[in-house]
């Protein structure tokens, strides 16, 4: 543990008082700390290691290595430490049921991404170009995102179920009930609802960075708003668009909560199959193999996105 980090904690607890505390105990500590700082000043490598090392080590050991462990286990039969086998992958890739699920998951992810990108971009554009209260609007857009995912799905169960809120409203205005819960439409609505705030942010960031003079220039040269949008605004903000697409597609592809709660038995997605392996079938290696299949799709998409200019680091604003 290093001194600067320890002082972070102390500062966070004590309210960041800039005045030094001057009782006897802390003077002794300060003395030792000064010795240590002097010691580290002479050894810049050790100093860097003492600050970057602990978070580095924790991320490698508790994040990267588990992912590698998953790769290893996916080649074992039946349980962790079982005989080496390709069987999990063979079983998965030769099963029509599972391949249907993967294809359905892919289609739903594409549809969700398209809907969210269109609506999210329209919203970000409207906020950036036509609104003066951008901070307030942005806050209103992101706040729902910070509440529980499950609670947000639960809200839609209430709205979409037969005789739920939506049906009651339709009844009031004399329309027939629709009972959308456990349909694909419900799944699309649920995903759109949770990812919309997420996608608006990179769109917003890239639109804010766009030089407004370019739009004026395009209009001065006789282009209408649609032409200007297609030939100036959209190409100039394409990095933000790609980042938004990646941020929506990947979590949709791996999701199990939304299809489980809103989709019923006709809309099984790949994430639900993994959940099953760990929560009821207890075939961990097979679950690990499916996890690897999802990872391959994710990596392929990231490579594609990086090729077309989306920022891998741009999990948000860094899209200029």
């Amino acid at each position, binding site marked *: 543990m290093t001194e*600067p*980090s320890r*002082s972070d*904690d102390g*500062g*966070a607890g004590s309210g*960041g008082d800039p005045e030094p505390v001057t009782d006897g105990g802390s003077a002794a500590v*300060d003395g030792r*700390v000064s010795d*240590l*700082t002097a010691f580290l000043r002479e050894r810049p490598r050790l*100093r*860097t290691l003492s600050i*970057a090392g*602990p*978070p*580095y080590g924790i991320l490698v050991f*508790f*994040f990267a290595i*588990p992912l590698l*462990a*998953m790769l290893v286990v996916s080649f074992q039969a039946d349980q962790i430490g079982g005989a080496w086998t390709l069987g999990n992958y063979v079983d998965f890739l030769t099963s029509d049921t599972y391949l249907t699920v993967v294809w359905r998951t892919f289609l739903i992810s594409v549809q969700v991404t398209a809907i969210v990108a269109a609506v999210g971009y*329209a*919203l970000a554009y409207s906020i950036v170009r*036509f609104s003066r209260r951008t*901070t307030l*609007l*942005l806050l*209103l857009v*992101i*706040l*729902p995102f*910070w509440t*529980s995912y*499950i*609670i947000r799905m*639960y*809200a839609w169960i209430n709205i979409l179920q037969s005789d*739920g*809120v939506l049906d009651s409203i339709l009844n009031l205005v004399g329309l027939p009930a629709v009972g959308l819960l456990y349909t694909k439409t419900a799944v699309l609505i649920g995903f759109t*609802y949770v990812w*919309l705030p997420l996608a608006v*942010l990179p769109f917003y*960031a890239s639109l804010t960075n766009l030089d407004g003079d370019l739009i004026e220039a395009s209009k001065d040269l006789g282009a*209408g708003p*649609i032409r200007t949008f297609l030939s100036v605004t959209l190409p100039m903000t394409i990095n933000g668009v790609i980042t938004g697409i*990646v941020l929506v597609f*990947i979590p949709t592809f791996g*999701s199990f*909560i939304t299809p*489980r*709660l809103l989709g019923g038995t006709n809309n099984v997605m790949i*994430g639900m199959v993994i959940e099953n392996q*760990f929560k009821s079938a207890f075939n961990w290696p097979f*679950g*690990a193999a499916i996890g690897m299949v999802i990872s391959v799709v994710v990596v392929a998409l*990231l490579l594609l996105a990086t090729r077309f200019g989306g920022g*891998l680091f741009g*999990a*948000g604003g860094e899209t200029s």
Partner: protein
Amino acid sequence: MSVIDRVTAPFERFTQTHASRMATAVIVGVLAFLWLPIGVLVFMSFADGGVLSFPPDELTLRWYRVFLANDAALDAIVTTLTISVPATGITVTLATMIAYAVDRYVFPGRSWLQLLATLPIIVPLVVTGVAMVLFFNGTLGLPDYVSVVIAHVIRTIPFATLVILPTFMSFDRGLEEASKDLGADEFETFRQVTLPNVFPGVVAGGLLAFTLSFNEFVYTYFVKGSGDPTLPVYIWNQIRYNVTPEVNVISVVFLAVAVTMVLAAVSLTRVELIARR
């Protein structure tokens, strides 16, 4: 004028004339879409008839009383806090170290550190959740509590780092030079100059890490065994097996936590930083 221009001309004119009105319609429409479901939850938490009735017959605080008398739900809140509070402390410490190292030092593996601190956002939660249960429970045999706290730390580090790193980067390092010129050593300078300046960003990062940890479901669901559920896991079981009107009240609890934390974080830093996720 090309053929295409002639076809699109009416649309161009329409957009030109109504642009501002269309923008307002989009903003109002999307905000309604985002907030009406939340409004429905709050409204239904006061509904006498319970989950299924809308509009409700009568408004009541009955379900709030039921919630406050329900030990299982309250225990779940306590369980969540015993995980989220230490996880937040660890995350803030680590994220500050990452921000400090990335901002100050050039070292081999610096971009790898940044990548590693970002990747947990990108890798699907279910994949990391599976990987963690295999490694923590299967290989290492860690106790449930330790596994869950570590999982929460991994989950929250990227978000805390995204908020804390920019505050370090925008901090004027001339102040530190001045402090050192006046005879303070690195540690004194950090405590008396650097920390007070980056403090709002660090606290904002902590508030968001806490919010995220309080809501955390997927990692917890995979990593945690059958022991005491956290509040999100408790809610999940309720929704899947026996929905009671109490769930509406718990929704309001989640909502209150999120709104309080995010508003506090926003007041400490720029909304654009919170907006990254």
